[in-house]
């Protein structure tokens, strides 16, 4: 049966290849997995994505140079292929040739009748971005307040406005207003010109409207709208931050800063640590709230203090977000495990190797494992900080409170948590708790939970291992030259790679030697 039909199938396939538009092969190979074979945005991978992949049949495109409701120009679609959609699962496509891109753009336009029935789209004339100045930025802030961008994006732009919890896209999926302090995650790009273009065109298919009518009605001037773009741009760092492999704990003489607002923190550069959803072990979580933590560290030879700042639009639990939580848990991967019922707090964990400094391999970065545990500072917005030991994701154990020495102080303001955690460098109970040696790279990792986003347990944001380096108390020459710092960084990077390789080998070994143990963990 199969043998006889095989030649027929081959002939049909050849025929199909001849008649199919040239972009189809590219589309089927690279795009269909997410956007679906028919362009409906419902490919196999779509269910784990938020925002969902574009439905090309509606021809409603977020990133355009055209007025709201208009089709995108070909150049607009090419632009998305060139730079991807930051902040979403859509990557850039440098691997496609110009010819392939032309073909696939032509092909995805065939998914919607609108590209036949509508007139050719006209790009709006945006003019040129003016140079930034303090006056322009201040004026932009005024207009930002006046035209009420803050209703969704928040007073400080962290996506925490009063209307944030009820946002949904045109397909009724929950969607978050952009956190304007992270311009490298803006769907349409993070330059002043990009921001101005989004203000003019809106992001069709999302709640972000076009403000072009304001210019037509002379409610504000074009210059004022440019100033809004300049202000929004000023909320984010000048350069996109690079993850810091090493967090330097600055040596301070005297007392450590006792509060998150203490002036001493302003002297310390924060380390940027990106976080991602935990999608390794069930229950996986594809729509995490927290994607960045900024870490400042200081010690005084006796104590270590960490100042952790992360953006979260909700101070959980918050009844205003209950409906959001219901919606997002029903949309995202509902089958791994039932959603946790009841109010959930926000939470944060700092993870150390339980037995650092013994020349051991790094514990498994996700809560350690049976043979190599991790030591956690686990903070919750409702109950404060607890010291824990973990030997796996669901094997966390609070350490005896007698020895608890970690102190916590937290504030929540305008969509941002700031958490100060302090402990003595030396642990009393060294069997379960790490001591912090100076002048030694110590492994450190982070996890965050947003209760209003249905996050608890395995549903969390995580980082991989980083290192914290406590500056050595020196009697002379406290200032390490940049060259030395660079050398240390290079050495640490080398160490990191070595350890990772070693660990990788170790894991493979354990897989072959202890198959029962591994499967039991899953």
């Amino acid at each position, binding site marked *: 049966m199969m043998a006889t039909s095989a030649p027929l199938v081959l002939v049909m396939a050849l025929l199909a290849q001849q008649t199919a538009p040239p972009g189809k092969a590219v589309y089927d190979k690279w795009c269909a997995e997410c956007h679906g074979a028919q362009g409906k945005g419902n490919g196999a991978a779509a269910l784990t994505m938020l925002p969902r992949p574009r439905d090309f049949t509606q021809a409603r495109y977020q990133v355009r140079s055209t007025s709201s409701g208009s089709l995108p120009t070909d150049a607009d679609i090419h632009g998305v292929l060139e730079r991807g959609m930051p902040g979403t699962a859509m990557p850039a496509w440098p691997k496609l040739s110009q010819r392939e891109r032309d073909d696939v753009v032509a092909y995805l336009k065939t998914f919607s009748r609108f590209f036949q029935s509508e007139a050719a789209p006209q790009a709006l004339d945006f003019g040129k971005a003016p140079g930034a100045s303090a006056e322009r930025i201040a004026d932009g802030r005024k207009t930002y307040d006046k035209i009420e961008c803050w209703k*969704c994006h928040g007073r400080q732009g962290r996506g925490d406005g009063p209307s944030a919890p009820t946002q949904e896209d045109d397909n009724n999926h929950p969607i978050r207003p952009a956190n304007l302090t992270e311009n490298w995650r803006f769907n349409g790009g993070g330059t002043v010109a990009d921001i101005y273009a989004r203000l003019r065109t809106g992001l069709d298919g999302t709640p972000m409207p076009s403000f072009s009518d304001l210019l037509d009605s002379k409610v504000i001037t074009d210059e004022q709208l440019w100033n809004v773009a300049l202000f929004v741009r000023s909320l984010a760092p000048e350069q996109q931050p690079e993850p810091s492999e090493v967090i330097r704990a600055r040596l301070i003489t005297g007392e450590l800063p006792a509060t998150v607002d203490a002036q001493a923190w302003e002297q310390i550069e924060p380390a940027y640590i990106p976080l991602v959803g935990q999608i390794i072990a069930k229950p996986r979580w594809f729509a995490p709230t927290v994607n960045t933590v900024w870490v400042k560290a200081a010690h005084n030879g006796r104590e270590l203090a960490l100042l952790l700042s992360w953006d979260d639009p909700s101070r959980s639990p918050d009844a205003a977000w209950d409906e959001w939580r219901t919606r997002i848990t029903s949309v995202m991967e509902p089958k791994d495990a039932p959603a946790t019922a009841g109010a959930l707090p926000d939470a944060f964990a700092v993870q150390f190797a339980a037995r650092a400094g013994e020349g051991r391999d790094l514990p498994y970065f996700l809560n350690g494992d049976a043979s190599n545990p991790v030591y956690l500072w686990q903070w919750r917005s409702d109950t404060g900080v607890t010291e824990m030991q973990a030997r796996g994701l669901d094997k966390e154990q609070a350490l005896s409170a007698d020895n608890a020495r970690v102190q916590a102080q937290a504030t929540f303001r305008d969509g941002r948590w700031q958490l100060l955690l302090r402990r003595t460098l030396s642990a009393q109970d060294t069997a379960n708790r790490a001591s912090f040696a100076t002048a030694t790279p110590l492994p450190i990792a982070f996890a965050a939970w947003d209760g209003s986003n249905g996050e608890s347990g395995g549903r969390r944001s995580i980082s991989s291992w980083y290192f914290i380096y406590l500056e050595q108390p020196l009697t002379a020459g406290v200032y390490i030259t940049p060259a030395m710092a660079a050398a240390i960084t290079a050495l640490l990077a080398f160490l990191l790679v070595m350890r990772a390789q070693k660990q990788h080998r170790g894991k493979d070994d354990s897989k072959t030697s202890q198959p029962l143990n591994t499967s039991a963990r899953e």
Partner: protein
Amino acid sequence: MFSRVCSIVIVLALAACGGGGEEAGSSAEGGATDDAPAVDPAQAATISGVVSYGGAAQSENIDMSAEPECAQKHSGTPTRKVVDVNNGKLRNAFVYVKEGLPQRSWPRASETPVLDQDGCEYKPHIVAVRAGQDFIIRNSDGLLHNINAKPQTNRGFNVGQPTKMDSKKQFAQAEVMIPVTCEVHGWMQSYIGVVDHPYYAVTNEDGTFTISGLPPGTYTVESWHEKLGAKTMQVTVGASETKQADFSYSGTTAMAMARHH
């Protein structure tokens, strides 16, 4: 090649060429011209009726505390009337002639419809507009609203109005109905009915509607309601005749329809 033939035919005969051409032809004018003759008043017929509903009214309280300026415009707790029924009579059903009208152009609407945002509510809740003719979206609140129109047949739009202002919009094609939402205020919901002729009405508080000025003929009339769905009826009217066309939704319809917009 085909499209070139089409355009030649259009140019020569000023006629539609079938398929997409026909759509483009009707959308260009929206079935209306300034000099289109009205129906002879001596002949004009009327269809009127009552839309009734056997179930209970449904309304939801709105928490407007985040917008005190809007809340002040309401006496008591603001509510969203999902099914607005009084003594069994249904308000805010959109009733229109769906089929049976002659292929011709109709006089333009004499007034420009207005969809107002007042007290963080759409007024009216159901708006009728003519294809290819302007309507106005008004912000009477003076605080930020976004107007997100999500059609299937037409192109949608999403515009921001952060102050008291008007925006002029239009839809090219007939489409019943186009949902309109404001994402700043998740409770705000309106529907726009776009028709390419003047024969439509929105039911009053007592469930009544009147469609007048019709040429004699046999029509499919549809009643559309956002929660109760659509019902159609055949009505034949002779010259100068008035016919009664009553629609009735049973009390169980609402239960069967999923709550979804």
